[in-house]
């Protein structure tokens, strides 16, 4: 697969379609699986890892779901290409930074990705745009069933599917939704919401999952437990809370428009202004401002920008994407200049289109 071609597309999670996509960016389900006759990855010698990689790659290629996938040898990729896959959420940061034989198999729509030799031998992920946990679960179940016929997954009657970390044992399932919650952040209700989520055993992480600081008001909600409940129950556990959060966010947005319209309009317009005129800008600031503009568009405060464009900019202004689109490697300082240039050009194009 040509990664450069991927750079031109947006990827499933930012397509911006699907139910409730004004708030729910994407729905994701992943399963952790291990091959019964090999040590777990962190305990595997170099040769074992190479054997696992070869074994799984070959077996996956024999099942119908696997034949639709393109395999990428992550161990042989340049750092920038690994970073690129992380930005598209097709591999994890840990997978990108790991050592030894490892790979990822991806489908053309970027809905399915199979990571080989991440923390577990196999991590199957399925991502759908908008709120569609059930659809993502049905799809991943099919893929898992097919691979499970070709590979003896490590399984114990009491403990279920065996994983390298006991936090994943049992179903090995992690069900998550990525939400855009700018109004809850602005109205300072977000911490309260998170505290109540923790009480019902749901985890909250920022986009890219580093610490609690979310970039651009994007938050991932997921199940914390994997044992003692069925996969369907866990899908429901996360699914049940999403409409509540959507309702909170919508009410907070309405409140902002009703009570502080001038302030919100000002904030959103300033964010838009900076994005259109800055000469150098960091990835973090870009994401923060795009988040505000995204909310502004949804509130009808900015007219000439499409949500799909904002979503696409969210990923294309990331460091590796920027460099791949430009075709050269750039250091941080030059990236910030290139990012500002890219944003100006993008919005100028819009302005031009608007006047035509």
């Amino acid at each position, binding site marked *: 697969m040509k990664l450069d071609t991927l750079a031109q597309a947006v990827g499933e999670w930012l397509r911006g379609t699907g139910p409730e996509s004004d708030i729910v960016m994407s729905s994701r389900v992943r399963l952790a699986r*291990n091959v*019964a*006759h*090999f*040590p*777990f990855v*962190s*305990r595997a*010698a170099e040769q*074992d890892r190479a*054997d696992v990689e070869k*074994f799984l790659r070959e077996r996956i290629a024999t099942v119908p779901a696997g034949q639709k996938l393109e395999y990428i040898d992550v161990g042989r990729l340049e750092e920038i290409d690994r970073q690129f896959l992380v930005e598209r959420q097709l591999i994890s940061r840990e997978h990108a930074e790991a050592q030894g034989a490892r790979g990822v198999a991806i489908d053309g729509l970027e809905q399915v990705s199979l990571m080989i030799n991440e*923390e577990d031998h196999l991590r199957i992920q399925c991502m759908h745009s908008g709120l569609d946990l059930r659809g993502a679960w049905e799809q991943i*179940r099919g893929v898992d*069933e097919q691979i*499970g*016929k070709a590979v*003896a*997954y*490590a*399984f*114990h*009657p*009491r*403990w*279920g*599917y*065996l994983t*390298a*970390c*006991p*936090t*994943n*044992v*049992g*179903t090995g*399932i992690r069900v998550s939704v990525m939400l855009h919650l700018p109004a809850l952040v602005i109205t300072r209700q977000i911490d309260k919401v998170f505290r109540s989520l923790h009480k019902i*055993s749901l*985890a909250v992480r920022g986009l890219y999952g580093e610490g609690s600081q979310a970039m651009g008001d994007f938050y991932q909600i997921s199940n*914390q*437990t*994997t*044992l*003692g*409940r*069925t*996969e369907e129950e866990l899908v429901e556990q996360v699914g049940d809370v999403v409409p509540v959060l959507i309702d909170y966010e919508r009410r907070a947005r309405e409140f902002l428009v009703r009570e502080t319209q001038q302030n919100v309009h000002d904030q959103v317009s300033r964010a838009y202004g900076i994005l259109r005129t800055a000469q150098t800008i960091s990835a973090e600031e870009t994401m923060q401002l795009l988040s505000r503009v995204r909310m502004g568009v949804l509130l009808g405060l900015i007219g000439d920008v499409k949500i799909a464009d904002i979503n696409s900019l969210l990923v294309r202004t990331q460091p590796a994407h920027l460099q791949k689109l430009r075709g050269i490697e750039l250091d941080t300082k030059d990236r910030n200049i290139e990012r500002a240039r890219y944003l100006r050009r993008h919005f100028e194009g819009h302005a031009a289109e608007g006047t035509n």
Partner: protein
Amino acid sequence: MKCQQCDKQAVFHITELETGEVRELHLCEDHARSYLNQSETGGGGEGEEKASPGGALTGPLAVGQTADELALLDKKACPMCGITFFEFRNQGRLGCPHDYVHFEKELEPLIANIHGSTQHTGRRPDRAATGSPLPEGTEELTGVIGLRRGMQEAIACEDYEKAREDRDAIRAIEERWLGAPRA
């Protein structure tokens, strides 16, 4: 190794596991006691289930397990992958599927605290559909991990006869349970 909070020797090595995040603590006896007491009172009244997942690992220490007993437990190693409980506690990652059998007693309170359950109720592999002779559990197959390790050690010691025996045993298991040799 020194205690993270003073200059004394660290004798307690605690691994906190929270939603996949691993946090390591290396503490002297005094600081370990105060840390453990703190996490106990933090988790509700005495004798109650502790709220934090990490409480599971620290729990057994707090109810009077001595450093000697702990050291003994830490040295307990899985016969398949060779990982010791100490290594697991340090890394937060197990070494192979057999660890769930070999360390079952030690893992049980930890898993109960993380998940609030010790019994899988989700999907199970459908071996019948594939015509596989393998039972639902995969213990038999996991046995090759120990044999492979033995074979590698034998090769390193130039004990080629043992290496051959191990290789044949691995093939026999794989043929029996997987229907064909793996490679």
